[in-house]
């Protein structure tokens, strides 16, 4: 899937930590920084859009800073109208300072799946959560299919712009499929550790014969 044809979504699947999964109306346009008809690369006019907020490519955000357009985009960002999305090949660790600054600027960040079987954005989300302690919403965008939801939810995504052909009723059920885990994730500690600890407690609780 080309990043130029990121579809708009009417609904977003939300799965906040510790809560039930649910659908809600989408507020965000995903902009791919492609050229308009006149050949210019300009932010979409949100006034005329059905969406009042826009996710811009991280590379475009960087280019604006380099072109000293900082004041303009930060003004928009301060209105809570701009978030960024990371392409699968964006090396976020190379831009740690920008991302730290983004914590106060971007109400939403997203990571893009060029195709469902490309797992790079799983690591992007995991790094945002663990290295940057990203506390707010991280959205999966692009080729997001039902059978990636569980993995995505565990690495750190808490909202999903499902590919439009995906059945939302099936999608909503995915998060209940597993009640146990064998490695830690953003959602919580491995349940297997709990059984090891309770066994250890039992052993320790047994009376010792001296």
């Amino acid at each position, binding site marked *: 899937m080309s990043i130029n044809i990121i579809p708009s979504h009417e609904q977003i699947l939300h799965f906040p930590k510790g809560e039930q999964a649910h659908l809600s109306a989408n507020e965000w346009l995903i902009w791919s920084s492609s050229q308009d008809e006149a050949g210019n690369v300009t932010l979409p006019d949100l006034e005329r859009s059905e969406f009042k907020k826009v996710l811009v490519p991280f590379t475009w955000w960087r280019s604006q800073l380099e072109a000293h357009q900082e004041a303009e985009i930060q003004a928009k960002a301060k209105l809570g109208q701009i978030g960024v999305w990371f392409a699968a090949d964006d*090396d976020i660790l190379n831009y740690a300072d920008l991302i730290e600054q983004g914590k106060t600027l971007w109400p939403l960040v997203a990571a893009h799946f060029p195709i*469902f*079987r*490309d*797992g*790079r954005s*799983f*690591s992007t989300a*995991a*790094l945002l959560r*663990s*290295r940057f302690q990203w506390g707010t919403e991280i959205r999966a965008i692009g080729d997001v*299919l039902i*059978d*990636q939801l*569980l*993995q*995505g939810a*565990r*690495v750190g995504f808490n909202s999903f712009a499902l590919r439009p052909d995906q*059945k939302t009723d*099936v999608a909503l059920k995915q998060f209940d*499929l*597993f*009640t*146990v*885990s*064998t*490695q*830690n*994730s953003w959602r919580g*500690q491995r*349940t*297997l*550790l709990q*059984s*090891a*600890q309770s*066994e*250890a407690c039992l*052993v320790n609780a047994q009376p010792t014969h001296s």
Partner: protein
Amino acid sequence: MYKYDHIDQTLVDQRVAQFRDQVFRRLNGTLAEEEFRPLRLQNGLYHQRHAYMLRVAIPYGLLSSQQLRTLADISEKYDRGYGHFTTRQNIQFNWVTLEDTPDILADLAKVEMHAIQTSGNCIRNITSDAFAGVASDEYVDPRPVCELLRQWSTLHPEFAHLPRKFKFGINGAKEDRTVLLCHDVGIELKKNANINNGELTADIYAGGGMGRTPILGSLIKTGLPWQLLPSYLTALLRVYNRFGRRDNLYKARIKILVKALGSEEFARQVEGEWLHLQNGNDNFTQAEWDRVAKHFTKPAYQSLEKLSAQQVLELAPAADTAVNKAGFQRWLERNVKDHQVPGYASVILSLKPHGTVAPGDATTAQMNAIANLADQYSFGELRVTHEQNLVLADVEQAQLYKLWQAAKQQYVALPNIGLLTDIIACPGGDFCSLANAKSLPIAKAIQERFDDLDYLFDLGDISLNISGCINSCGHHHVGNIGVLGVDKDGEEWYQITLGGEQGNAAAIGKVIGPSFYADEIPDVISKIINTYSEERSVDESFIEAYRRLGVTPFKEAAYKNKHENEKNKDKAEVSGSAA
């Protein structure tokens, strides 16, 4: 061996339910084949030439008799009465249907088995030494670490869609029986009084692999405390997940990344990432070790005297025929291995009878009978070797003669372990849709050509491995003699490599020259073997002779008269068509 607790059991049960739903959606058309494919592969289900093939994990090669009986039942109920043990401690069923697969997985879950991550671009079934816990040359029993890492890697969310497949091999013995250096990550376990308070540590090799670009792994970390394996491996896999190539399937394995960066730079990047993770709560705890390790205690061995070789030989009744006695002696020599505990031995059951349909195949009846042998002679447990044989690890020496007789009844007592006919082979073009050429008829033809135990014993240790394509499932790169099926203009040809070796002196074989037709292969192997017989010094093995002599005499012999033969063949075909 390890027993599931309710969490392990819940996980495999829920995985079956998840896959059942995925199959349901595939069958009702809401899940496209292209999108179902990675999902079924991550559950071991391939679509082969004739049917679906299900690859079931035998984690680090350990199998109970009850599990083997279930595999036998599955082979009878859902397949065509046999199963194929693979080079990575899995078993494959070649004739299953998509519709049956969820039920097969449910049957497997009942005996604590699954097909999770036996294929796909994820962390695969973890392999280890088939003699773990019993080998006389072992310094660390690798099984607790294998099991802890099996758990850690199972359904790991961040590494579910890696650039390519990812294989762990784990060794804890002096001799490497795992082909450690041909794994994406090789973990060598050690104990050293000066490191980690004398507790277990790991040396990590990265970037090994066979396939199109065979490379031996590079040492990137030494003395890693066992507790820190999850954080270190997370760092390693994260670097690979982020930077491994995804533009070219053939350059996507970690070995290409390690080669491109250089192993030092790769190690540096892993260290950089690990710095942030090593003190995190991903690491293993002592409580986890204790919970797992208690399953790998020694079975209830009797206190026995070690029998000498002569005493074992004398287990054969005095009235036994000379032929029988010689047969028993040969079996003891090739198929019985030393054990850590006095009075015990490990026995290899050969799944390579001469003229077999496929190396590593076992029929339903054989699986059931072998399960009984395990109950009767080896505490109800078995191991699967990467050479595609089965092992009864804990046999009383005093029972060896009885076991030999029982094994003969099942045709799994051929004393050819480590000999020329103990061929490793993939299923090849008879089954596999990836294959360029057939492997099984080649293996059969070679076994038939060399169906003479006197001669095979005289030749001694030689490994001959056959792969039907460059994916190298038959491990041809590390065979002393490797045979690789290649496609040339739609015809099946075979390339020969020499000098490959597994074990501590692991080496990748070298191609000797242009490839051969299938029907030339037995003659070519004969010429190579004859060269060895003529040129060898006393007690010199094939690989030692090859190293001393170099490729030239073998190559010259292999191609001698090839041109003449081809001309004659062409003439015969011309006259044939004229008639």
